[in-house]
């Protein structure tokens, strides 16, 4: 399988200098380094799960890939085209193939538009259909995502959270995209509804041959939907590998801590000694030197405080960015 998406050295910094005076005086330093050099490849037809705590830059990465937030540096190749150099018109055409599903099904739908208008909007913008053809396509997709087509003229507030998320999914899929960024699509939903949406996304992927970047902070959801997992910490990928490798033999101390923090339901999982992480995520404005994780890592050595580890391949397609792993190999 070929790589549908290739990201090289992607950087996204936000200028946090306050007000016009701050900008004029050009006082540097206050840069929020949300994404700090990310390399990723996503194979055609697969799902890459991106996991990390809030504030690690995973949503920013998802948006920078689609150029919803303009990347500061780096290259994003989609289907062989470098989309970071495209002008607005070319990008608009490209967007038909790359879509996003948002986290909050309440905030991401316009409350003043009906479901027909919301789902049909992309068709209008890209001048693909009008009139009854548009209605047909909207109805067709509503059926696919499990919505009742006679609810087409209702407004978002008349739907439950799970149904709204289905509307958001339909809107993302109406243009027949190849690639969809799912930005925490189930985090705002109840457990039983969450399972419905996960299954729906999995079925749609099969049926329509989609490729997903699935962003979540919930490792059990990520483990369930993804073929590969990338673990993000403070703007960088610290570990990447096949789902089973990451879940069964994580190498990076952060991945290990993340996995052991998850409360488990099944008996065989409970009772294991928990790796405790102390403290919080450092601020993305003032990043630690060396390894970004050394302030919370129980294995931190002198080296970790000064030298930033590089990505190492442990076996085949398993990448880890940690000095401990370097020493072993």
């Amino acid at each position, binding site marked *: 399988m070929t790589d549908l998406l290739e990201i090289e050295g992607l950087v996204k910094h936000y200028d946090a200098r306050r007000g016009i005076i701050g900008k004029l005086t050009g006082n540097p330093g206050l840069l929020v380094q949300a994404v700090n050099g990310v390399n990723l490849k996503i194979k055609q037809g697969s799902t890459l799960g991106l996991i990390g705590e809030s504030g690690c830059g995973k949503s920013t990465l998802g948006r920078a890939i689609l150029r919803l937030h303009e990347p500061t540096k780096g290259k994003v190749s989609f289907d062989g085209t470098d989309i970071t150099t495209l002008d607005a018109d070319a990008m608009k055409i490209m967007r038909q193939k790359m879509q996003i599903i948002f986290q909050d099904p309440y905030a991401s739908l316009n409350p003043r538009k009906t479901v027909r208008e919301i789902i049909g909007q992309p068709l209008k913008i890209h001048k693909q259909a009008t009139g009854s053809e548009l209605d047909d396509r909207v109805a067709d997709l509503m059926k696919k995502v499990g919505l009742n087509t006679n609810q087409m003229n209702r407004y978002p507030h008349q739907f439950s959270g799970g149904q709204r998320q289905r509307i958001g999914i339909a809107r993302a899929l109406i243009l027949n995209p190849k690639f969809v960024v799912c930005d925490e699509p189930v985090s705002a939903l109840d*457990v*039983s509804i969450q*399972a419905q949406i996960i299954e729906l996304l999995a079925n749609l992927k099969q049926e329509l041959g989609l490729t997903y970047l699935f962003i979540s902070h919930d490792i*059990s959801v990520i483990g369930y939907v993804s073929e590969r997992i990338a673990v993000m910490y403070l703007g960088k990928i610290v570990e990447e590998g096949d789902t089973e490798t990451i879940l069964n033999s994580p190498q990076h101390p952060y991945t290990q801590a993340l996995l052991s923090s998850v409360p*488990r339901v099944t008996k065989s999982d409970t009772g294991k000694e928990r790796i405790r992480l102390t403290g919080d995520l450092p601020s993305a404005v003032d990043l630690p030197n060396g390894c970004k994780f050394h302030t919370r890592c129980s294995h931190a050595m002198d080296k970790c405080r000064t030298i930033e580890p590089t990505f190492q391949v442990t076996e085949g397609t398993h990448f880890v960015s940690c000095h401990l792993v370097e020493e072993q190999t």
Partner: protein
Amino acid sequence: MNKPVLEIENLKTCFDTRDGMVTAVDGVSLKVNQGECLGIVGESGSGKSVTFASVMGLVKKPGFIAEGEIRFEGRNLVGLDANEYRNLRGKEIAMTMQDALTALNPAYTVSDQIIEALLEHDETLTGSKRQKFRQARDKAVEMMDLVGIPAAKSRLDDYPHQFSGGMRQRIMIAIALACRPTLLIADEPTTALDVTIQAQVLELIADIQDKLGMSVVLITHDLGVVAEFCDRVIVMYAGQVVESGPTREVIDNPQHPYTQGLLNSIPRLSDLKHRIEPIMGTVPDLIQLSPQCRFLGRCTQSTEACSSSVDMREIGEGRGVRCTLVSPAGEAE
């Protein structure tokens, strides 16, 4: 050790809304024993938060308690007046709210907010007003140390926005625990937090529970949290208790189709091949409830008997299920 601290009997809390009467809590009975941790599991709208808002006397108009009794250490709380409640809340029963940022007052420093509870309730403070304040301030530092806020002394006069989400949740716990309550009600204490921080906060609550010997009610939607931290669990659905019992028994051998459905909805890390089975449909509207089983529309195992009202059935020591599929203990199938 098995003395109940809190007993709720047949509690019914309603909200008189423009669209009709919403029965958010419908006949909930439960008890919390001394020193135990009781988990309350349910989805949004299941009535788990309203049940304990009723206990705390926090149900405001248009809501009201229509029926039932809430006994705390033998004393009925329903109908207590504002002053009596004031003496109880924060002192003997404390509650932490889900969203620490909105629950803390942004205009006061965290020390103000901890000291307020102490000055109001703590009878061990002695001397003049000034001396009491001094002692309360020392105690506030002690509490912040207890909940694991680093450099507590220097952070005492910071405002809530200067703390991270996990630290704010700890401050709420510090306020709740300041007067050493007999019962702590923690409403979704970790829902807004990342897993690594969640583990820290839950272990903290368990730790303090051991140290102070208090009882804890943990309201959550996360069965994993319950499995790891609670002694007993109560599963709620559409305002009713549908299953209750010791945590391991309920999780290893769920009897109610809803509990089974919930457990099957969670992806398992240890078994990636295990396919999840979502519960179809959504929670019923709480306004027009017919007497039938509330899970009927979503249940895959329903029979004719389910269309009449279903009572809680005792199926063992402290184990109850509200389902026609199980037969009560002692009765033959």
